[in-house]
């Protein structure tokens, strides 16, 4: 095991690609992801990393090249954010349909309009139906570990599907944290070399991406992807076991925090988990039986594990850093669907929407959410609760006044 180094989430992503000995990096700049490709470009040009990095003319092209390179037998890494992911969106479905394993790091950034730089998860969650697996990081260490995990799961012949590893822009991308690296031998032990069973090469005639005529053929291939991605949950567990045996670090699809006797549980993803955990500890000190479940693997959706972690609890809140307009939180609805047939499901399931556009969510706000769970009468059933502080409202009012907007808001 190598020493622990201080690095940003972006550098951790670059290190993961370097450790995985990726062959090909199609790239396109977008804040806050750009540092990843800059770091890799530097390493390749200095000769410390042997790979080809090519800057394409758009994310659409970047993802196209990523997919076809994977089908030609190259291990592919790429990264993007926000509108970049949306610009290339069509290709996500194609890459999954081509059964082209690769890893895409998404550095979350809220989607325009209004245009902004800070994170929420509408960008990455838009890809949830595409056939990409999704792994979400809380800390910079997770970024490194999950990228390596993602390669192993993606390239497993039982899976053969691409992965997205998500980290929050700014909160992780530009925040330095201690990250433990792996040495070459450890990586070699964990991650076998990539090969594609029907890669393009001379004298082998391969057709990729042909049309189908008839919904039955289409359905068959789509169901095939669904089966493979579902199977990936087990492949992830196997990989996590191996990873722990090599690094000592435990990775789980859903991580419980002070769950044993918890009655009030918060479901959450990504970097705000760290703040929420502090709220849980604080409440525990006051004698409140609070706990937390962090969802790391969003696709395949770990419904079974979530049910295990949530059944028999009194009340559960799902913190969504995203908004499905006209509905509410996305992970809330998935959690609710998972719990629907469970006998001892929690009586209260509260949807909380916060952190949009990177809006900071304080320790007190998480405590407030738990206080609602302890008083379920106060909880509006089925309606998302938007976290918005008074000081923030005052600032909005001031801005609107400056913008010349008159009257009631």
């Amino acid at each position, binding site marked *: 095991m190598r020493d622990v180094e201080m690095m940003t989430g972006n550098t951790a992503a670059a290190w993961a690609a370097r450790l995985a000995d990726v062959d090909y990096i199609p790239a396109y700049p977008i804040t806050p992801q750009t540092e990843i490709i800059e770091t890799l470009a530097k390493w390749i040009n200095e000769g410390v990393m042997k790979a080809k990095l090519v800057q394409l003319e758009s994310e659409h092209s970047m993802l196209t090249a990523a*997919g*076809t390179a994977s089908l030609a037998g190259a291990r592919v890494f790429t990264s993007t954010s926000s509108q970049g992911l949306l610009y290339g969106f069509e290709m996500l479905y194609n890459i999954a349909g081509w059964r082209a394993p690769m890893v895409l790091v998404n550095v979350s950034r809220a989607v325009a309009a209004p245009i902004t730089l800070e994170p929420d998860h509408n960008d990455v969650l838009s890809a949830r139906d595409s056939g990409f697996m999704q792994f979400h990081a809380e800390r910079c260490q997770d970024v490194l570990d999950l990228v390596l995990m993602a390669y192993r799961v993606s390239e497993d012949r039982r899976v053969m599907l691409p992965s997205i590893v998500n980290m929050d822009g700014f909160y992780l991308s530009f925040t330095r944290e201690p990250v433990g690296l792996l040495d070459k031998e450890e990586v070699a032990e964990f991650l076998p070399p990539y090969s594609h069973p029907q890669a*393009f*090469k*001379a004298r082998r005639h*391969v057709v990729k991406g042909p*049309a189908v*005529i008839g919904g039955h053929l289409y359905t068959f291939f789509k169901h095939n992807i669904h089966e493979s991605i579902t199977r990936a949950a087990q492949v992830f567990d196997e990989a996590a076991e191996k990873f722990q045996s090599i690094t000592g670090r435990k990775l789980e699809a859903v991580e419980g925090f002070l769950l044993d006797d918890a009655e009030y549980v918060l479901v959450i993803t990504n970097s705000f988990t760290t703040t929420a955990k502090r709220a849980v500890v604080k409440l525990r000190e006051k004698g409140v039986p609070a706990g937390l479940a962090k969802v790391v693997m969003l696709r395949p959706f770990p419904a079974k594990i979530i049910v295990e972690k949530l059944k028999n609890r009194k009340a559960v809140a799902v913190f969504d850093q995203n908004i499905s307009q006209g509905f509410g939180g996305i992970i809330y609805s998935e959690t609710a669907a998972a719990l629907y047939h469970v006998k001892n499901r929690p009586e209260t399931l509260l949807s909380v929407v916060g952190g949009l556009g990177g809006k900071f969510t304080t320790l007190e706000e998480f405590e407030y959410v738990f206080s609602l769970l302890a008083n379920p009468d106060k909880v509006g059933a089925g309606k998302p609760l938007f976290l918005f502080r008074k000081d923030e409202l005052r600032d909005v009012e001031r801005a609107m006044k400056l913008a010349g907007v008159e009257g009631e808001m």
Partner: protein
Amino acid sequence: METRFKTLREFPLDEYLSPGATMCAGCGGMIVLRIFHKALGGNVVIVNAAGCLTLLQVYPYTPLKSSWMYTAFASAPAGAQGIRDALDILMEKGKLPQGEDLKVVVLTGDGAAYDIGLQSSSGAIERGLDFYYLVYDNEAYGNTGFQRSGATPFGSSTTTTPPTNLNPAGYSGMKKDLFEIWRSHNPPYLATIAPSHVVDMLRKIETASGFRGPKLFISLSPCPTGWGFDPSETIKLSRLAVECGVWPLKEAVYGKVRHTVVPKVLKPVEEYLRRQNRYAHLFTPTRQEEAINFIQEKVNEYWLKVSATEGHEVIKPINLAEKQTE
């Protein structure tokens, strides 16, 4: 330059495209693909964007004795980039023997090349990607039922530019000059081709194969279904397009243009237009003299400029004034 192809006797006999594919009878694009493939041989991966020829591959059938990668409408050149780069880096890292290398060929229609994929082809050419690009240009979106594209010429009727009383000429804009757009990127090799001029085409592919980098071909692809002519006339239409000067055959090596077939006397464009339903409104119920003359004038202008810059013997344009007094 020494060439393998002097007459049609040298036409390669190997076939890479089996008969029986479900394209329209007489499709010019198919003829060009067949010849193009013969010239390149079998160790090829064709990277395709959405278009008529996408339907060559309908699972589980393929008429090709080569590999095929369907990408998306806008990004076939980027798909080619991914495969080319992957093969290169894998060979460099010793993970793939040199003998396993493939030629990478982008094959798209004009919708992809002139419109939705212009950005990705520009990027691939600018990066100097080592690939062939074959555009089969039928001057409209043929696969979706003949809507106007950036390649549609003035005067053509399409399903989105129908000739009406308000708009008698059909399409009132001009065909985009993709040759010049691509030439401005200074690729090593760029040419126009036509299915009627097979030896010219084979020689151009032969010349192109001597270069590393983008090798770009824009082929006129007479389309019986969209243009409205009998499928047996594809080659005749193609020849007329060249002889009337509507489809100049030329090449550009590192930007330097040379016309490879120079008609000494231009045939009137009318001979070409008259044979196609897409131009029928220019002749019936009333003859649209102004529109026809405009098309002729543009052709005349083009060739006068060519004879001036390339110093060809006189190319005799059609004298409109004379013609009218006839």
